[in-house]
C-alpha cells in the first residue's frame, strides 16, 4: 500500500482509541478511501494485517456499508438524496439534471471523468429538501436551476485546473 505519511500517522493514532483492534476497521477504511479513492483488494489485505484479522473480516464490512466503494469514481462525488422528503420536493428531477449536465448515468464515472452521480438514502436535512452532498459539502434546496448552477461551477473549475 502506498499511503501518504499523514494517513499512516492517523491510522496508528485511531487504533489507540479502542481496546480491541478490530474496532479500527471502519476508521481505517475511511482513511484509506479518503487517501486512495476506493478500497482495493490490496487495501483489504493491508487492513486485515494491520488489525490482526482475516481479509474476509474486512471484506464483509466493505460490502455491507454503502459508503465504501471497490472502484474509482469521478473527481467529484455528487450524492443526491432519494428519500421521501427530498422526492416530494423534486429530488428525482434534481438527480436527472446532474445526470444530463454531465452526460452520465447513476453510479458511473462521467465521460469527462469529472463526476460520479449517485442516488443515496436520507441525508438528514429534510427541511431544506432537495439536498445534495458533493464530496463533503451539503447543498440545500437544490432544484433543477441550482443543480445547473452547481454543475456549471464544477465544469468551470475543471477548466481552470
Amino acid at each position: 500500500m502506498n499511503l501518504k505519511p499523514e494517513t499512516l500517522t492517523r491510522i496508528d493514532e485511531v487504533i489507540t482509541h479502542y481496546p480491541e483492534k478490530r474496532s479500527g476497521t471502519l476508521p481505517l477504511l475511511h482513511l484509506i478511501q479518503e487517501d486512495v479513492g476506493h478500497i482495493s483488494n490490496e487495501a483489504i489485505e493491508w487492513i486485515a494485517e494491520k488489525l490482526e484479522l482475516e481479509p474476509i473480516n474486512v471484506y464483509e464490512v466493505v460490502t455491507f456499508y454503502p459508503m465504501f466503494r471497490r472502484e474509482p469514481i469521478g473527481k467529484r462525488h455528487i450524492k443526491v438524496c432519494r428519500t421521501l422528503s427530498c422526492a416530494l420536493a423534486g429530488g428525482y428531477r434534481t438527480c436527472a439534471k446532474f445526470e444530463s449536465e454531465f452526460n452520465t448515468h447513476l453510479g458511473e464515472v462521467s465521460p469527462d471523468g469529472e463526476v460520479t452521480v449517485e442516488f443515496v438514502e436520507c441525508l438528514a436535512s429534510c427541511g431544506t429538501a432537495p439536498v445534495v452532498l458533493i464530496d463533503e459539502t451539503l447543498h440545500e434546496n437544490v432544484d433543477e436551476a441550482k443543480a445547473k448552477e452547481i454543475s456549471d461551477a464544477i465544469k468551470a473549475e475543471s477548466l481552470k485546473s
Partner: protein
Amino acid sequence: MSAPAERRIIFKHIDEEGYSNDIACYQKHGGYEILKKAVTQKPEDLRDEVKKSGLRGRGGAGFSCGLKWSFVDRKSGKPIYLVVNADESEPGTFKDRYIIHQDPHQLIEGTMISCFANDVKQAYIYIRGEFPEGARILEQAIQEARDAGLVGKNICGTEYSCDIFVHRGAGAYICGEETGLIESLEGKRANPRIKPPYFPAVLGLYQCPTIVNNVETLCHVKHILDMGADEYLKIGTPNNTGTRIFCVSGHVQKPGYYEYACGEVTMGQLLNDVCGGPLPGRTFKAVIPGGSSAKILRFGEKFTIKNKDGTTKEWAVEDIPLDFDSLAAAGTMGGSGGVIVMDDSVNMVEALANINAFYAHESCGQCTPCREGSLWMKKISSRMVKGEAREEDGELIKNVADQIAGRTICAFGEACSWPTQSFVAKFGDEFKSYKDDKNSKSSDSLELV
C-alpha cells in the same frame, strides 16, 4: 386557535446570530458550569434526578432514560461504556445535525455529565458517515474541551477521568439500532443482536455494560440538572416531560425545526399556524408524525380516545396533541420527531413505493422475514408504479407486511412493515384503483420512485 410561542431549550442558540460552535462562545453563555457542579455530586444522585425528570429517549422508541440507566450492570467489574447515537437516519429527522454543527459543546457537556453519573470511563460518539463535517466539528470541539480539562484526564480537577472519541459510520441506516450500532463500533457488519441475552446494559460494547443514548436525549440531561427535575417536570404533560424538536418536511409553506413542550401544540397548530399551512391551492392529505416508519395519519379520519374517567372524546388529525402518549393513542408514534407532510398532489401508492425502496435498501439481511419481505414490498409497489398494477396488490403487499412485524431480531421488522400496513389500511381505495388512474397521478407528475 393560534399556536403558542416556541420554547427553545435544546435549540436555544441554533441559528442565533453571533453564536459560534467554539468553546469560548459556549462558555460565555454559561457552558460547562453544569458539568463542573455535577462532578462534585454523587453519581447516584444525578441518576435519581434524571429518573425523576421522566425524560424519555428522543431517538425513536421514547423509552425512559432513567430506567435505561438503571438497568446498567454496575457489579460486573467490567468497564461501562456510553455511546452517543448520532446516526440520525430515520427519514424525516434532521434535529441532531443542527446540535452537532452549531452547538456541539452542548452535546459534549450532556455526554460528560451522563458519563460521570454512570461511572463511564470511555464514551464514543457514533456519527453517521454522511456527516463528515459534523464529525470534524465534534472532534475539534472535543479537543477544545480536552484542552480545557473538561474531557479526558482529571475532569475539572477531580479524580474522575473519561475520554470521548468520534466514530464514523458508513451509510447504513441499521446502525441507528443500538445493538447494530454496537456491532458496527466493534468493526463488524451492523447486524443487530438478539435480546436476550444481549441487552446493551449488561452485554453491550465488547460484552461490557453499555448505555446508548440519542444526541438530543443527552442534551436534555444537561438541562434537567440545570433546572432540577421538579422544574423540568413542569414542562410538557405527565409522562411526556420536557420539550420536543419537531422536524417538519414535505408539503408545508415553512418546513423546518420547531421546539415545543411535549403536548403543547396539536398537529393542526404545528402544520397550519407554525408551518404556514399547505402550499397555495393545495390541501393536506396525510402526515407521517415520527419518521418514515411511523404509521401514517390521513386527514379526515377520526380517532375515538378514552379519557381517564372512562368517557370518550373524538379527535381529528389536527386535534392530536404532539406528545408520545397522544400519538400512540391515535395508533401511531412520536418516534424521532420527523413530521413528513403530503398534500393532495401526492399519490399514496407512489409515496409508499418510495418508502419501501428505502427499507429494502436498508435491511441488514439477517432475518429472513425482513430481508425477503422488505424486498418484496419494494418489488410489488415498484411494479405498481411502473404500470403493472393489479387490483389485489394492496392486499398482497399488506399480507407480506403482516408476516414481518414481530418475527425479527430487531425493530426494523416493524419499521419496514408499519408504512405498508397503514398506507393500505387508510388509502386502500388508491391501491385498488391505481391500475386505472395512474395516468392522472400526482398533479404535477412529481416522480417519487
